């Protein structure tokens, strides 16, 4: 097939329009830079969302031939592979805004406990920055997107002056908080990118609890509405939808010179040219693109002569524990939707109590799914049947509390993404293979995570739903992939500097979670946004100075 080559040379080409790419596009266009965004999907139309469709209306609509928006990429369309005994669940949203269309909105600042953790315990490289370098960007991001939260401030979860009011806790959350306090654990107001009041002209949340199906009024941050739309209004942004980037191209000097992509529908091959290339396709897809970008100048994939790209994949270990608090058992169910997901959070504290631990790093805890839900999955774990069973479900239903501890997984050299000898996708591009194992450190941490979750439920005098101790979700479930194109001071051990700029190929940037040297126990998107903002400030300054 003929390759369609465009002669235009763009200032900057950005691959992807999620949190990372959206922020890069917004921040560059407002500084006058011409940007081309390649997005593997297209816009999700709000009018087609099923946000307010009740559970029993789904089937009726499906029977009428209607379909909810297809947010998630079907792996049959875009496969990836993993080693047989180590399955990895990769969740991808291709389309404008990427996963921010459906994300959980938990927005936590990383602190020096995170940035300097590796320097303290000696496991792998530290971040090439400190909290003070990023905190001005956290401030700016929070003001831009709107994050609700409390006024607490601690080393593992630095505070903010810019939080919108936190939503009131639900009864179950309040009771858990009290119980946790009783055993010396502090649960704070959750921090979520949900507008609990009007913000920058955007309408506030109406507490419908439908966030996971997409918000039809954009009352939580998504990159498409909050970043791409304003960027488009500057007239400086061009977006090519359904452009599946395959490779970053380079010139004879080895510098990035453009991108090869395939039209998602027709499969037609295109190339576009640019002075700067920013990769922001989400950790695994970005890594695949970089590793597939082979040339005589970059036989190991672009900017990868030190064999760092693809390695050190890290995510989080997570499990779920459920209980029923006695104060609420048998009461009338309330509307517990709120801003959907938890209104409280347990920041990491295990580094504080002076106790010696036999593992490194730490864990936090989330509580989504507490209170009256739009299903009663817990009933499957109750024995019996019949009228007693039915009464038992009803009695427990309002009393449900859900605990989800998230623990950091250490970066390891052999946890990696490769494209060597893998099958090819429909465009003839090698797919990603994910090799990922957790080890002793995680096993020991998970032990303590079980102890803490169990102790919290006991302190609440909750009936604990039976669980299998030691069990963790399949890898990838936390949807927080990091590490495969990490930043660092040492160009031999890292791929990027602290501005997400390649050490080796100066006009190449990677601004998504791949740039994180560690996974931490926290959700990354606020930090992805802050880092992408910081990186593109640096990039714009370098362009203005004529260095790029």
């Amino acid at each position, binding site marked *: 097939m003929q390759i369609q080559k465009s002669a235009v040379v763009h200032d900057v080409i950005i691959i992807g329009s999620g949190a990372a790419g959206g922020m890069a596009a917004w921040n560059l266009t407002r500084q006058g830079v011409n940007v081309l965004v390649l997005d593997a999907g297209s816009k999700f139309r709000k009018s087609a969302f099923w946000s307010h469709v009740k559970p029993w209306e789904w089937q009726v609509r*499906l029977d009428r031939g209607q379909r909810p928006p297809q947010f998630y990429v079907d792996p049959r369309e875009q496969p990836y592979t993993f080693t047989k005994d180590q399955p990895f669940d990769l969740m991808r949203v291709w389309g404008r805004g990427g996963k921010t269309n459906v994300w959980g909105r938990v927005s936590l600042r990383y602190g020096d406990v995170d940035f300097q953790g590796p320097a303290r315990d000696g496991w792998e490289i530290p971040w090439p920055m400190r909290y003070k370098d990023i905190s001005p960007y956290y401030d700016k991001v929070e003001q831009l997107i709107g994050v609700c939260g409390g006024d607490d401030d601690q080393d593992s979860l630095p505070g903010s002056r810019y939080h919108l009011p936190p939503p009131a806790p639900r009864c179950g959350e309040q009771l858990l908080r009290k119980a946790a306090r009783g055993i010396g654990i502090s649960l704070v107001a959750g921090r979520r990118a949900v507008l609990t009041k009007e913000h920058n002209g955007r309408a506030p949340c*109406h507490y419908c609890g439908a966030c996971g199906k997409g918000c039809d009024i954009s009352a939580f941050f998504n990159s498409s509405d909050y970043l791409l739309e304003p960027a488009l209004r500057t007239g400086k942004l061009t977006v090519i939808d359904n452009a599946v980037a395959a490779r970053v191209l380079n010139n004879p000097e080895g510098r990035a010179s453009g991108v090869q992509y395939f039209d998602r529908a027709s499969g037609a091959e295109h190339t576009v040219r640019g002075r700067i290339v920013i990769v922001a396709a989400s950790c695994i897809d970005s890594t695949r693109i970089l590793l597939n970008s082979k040339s005589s100048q970059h036989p190991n994939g672009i900017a990868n002569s030190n064999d760092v790209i693809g390695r050190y994949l890290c995510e989080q270990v997570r499990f779920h524990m459920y209980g029923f608090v006695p104060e609420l058992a048998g009461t009338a169910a309330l509307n517990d939707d709120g801003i959907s997901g938890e209104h409280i959070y347990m920041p990491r504290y295990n580094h504080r109590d002076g106790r010696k631990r036999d593992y490194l790093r730490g864990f936090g805890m989330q509580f989504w799914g507490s209170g009256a839900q739009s299903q009663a*999955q817990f009933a499957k774990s109750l024995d019996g049947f019949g009228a007693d069973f039915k009464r038992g479900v009803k009695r427990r239903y309002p009393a449900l509390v859900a605990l989800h501890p998230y623990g950091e997984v250490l970066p390891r050299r052999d946890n990696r993404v490769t494209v060597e000898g893998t099958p090819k996708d429909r465009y003839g591009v090698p797919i990603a293979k994910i090799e990922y194992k957790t080890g002793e450190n995680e096993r020991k941490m998970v032990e303590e995570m079980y102890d803490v979750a169990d102790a919290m439920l006991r302190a609440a005098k909750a009936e604990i739903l039976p669980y299998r101790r030691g069990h963790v979700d399949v890898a990838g479930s936390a949807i927080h992939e990091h590490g495969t194109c990490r930043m660092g001071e040492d160009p031999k051990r890292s791929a990027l500097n602290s501005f997400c700029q390649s050490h080796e190929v100066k006009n190449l940037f990677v601004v998504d979670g791949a740039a994180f040297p560690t996974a931490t126990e926290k959700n990354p998107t606020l930090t992805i946004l802050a880092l992408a903002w910081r990186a593109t400030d640096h990039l714009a300054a370098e362009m203005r100075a004529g260095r790029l």
Partner: protein
Amino acid sequence: MNSRRQLLKGVATATVLPILPAAPVLDPEQSKLVAALVDLIIPRTDTPGAVDAGVPAYVNRHLENNPAQQPRFGAGLRAVDEQSHLQFKQPFAGLRPEQQTAILQSMSDRKDPFFKFIKDLTIDGYYSSREGLAQELGWQGQSMLPEFKGCTHPEHKG
């Protein structure tokens, strides 16, 4: 219990359903048996039961959409009837309620996988129906509210 990931997967599979309902998977005899089973699992009390909430149709639909599960489901139904013949010389659907309950109780006690399967389907179908979710459990979610009051009980705060 389902993780968020599994719930998302549920949504994903729900989206590839065929456009029009296909012919019923279960024959009339099997349908009768399914109705008897799901109604024993979640019976009508002062609120609607599984049959009132349309769970048999839900089960049928589930099997339509997951043809790979049909043979095992069919075998499970046959085993219930065999047990019923063995114990009471009659098909299950014709037994007295206490006889039916006895058979189900023994399946429940020995953690019979087919019992678990149909019970889980009953839970999915019933508690996503208007009768099960709104009427029985009192779910009022997915409404548009001007404010969220949260917990208003001082005694919960402690």
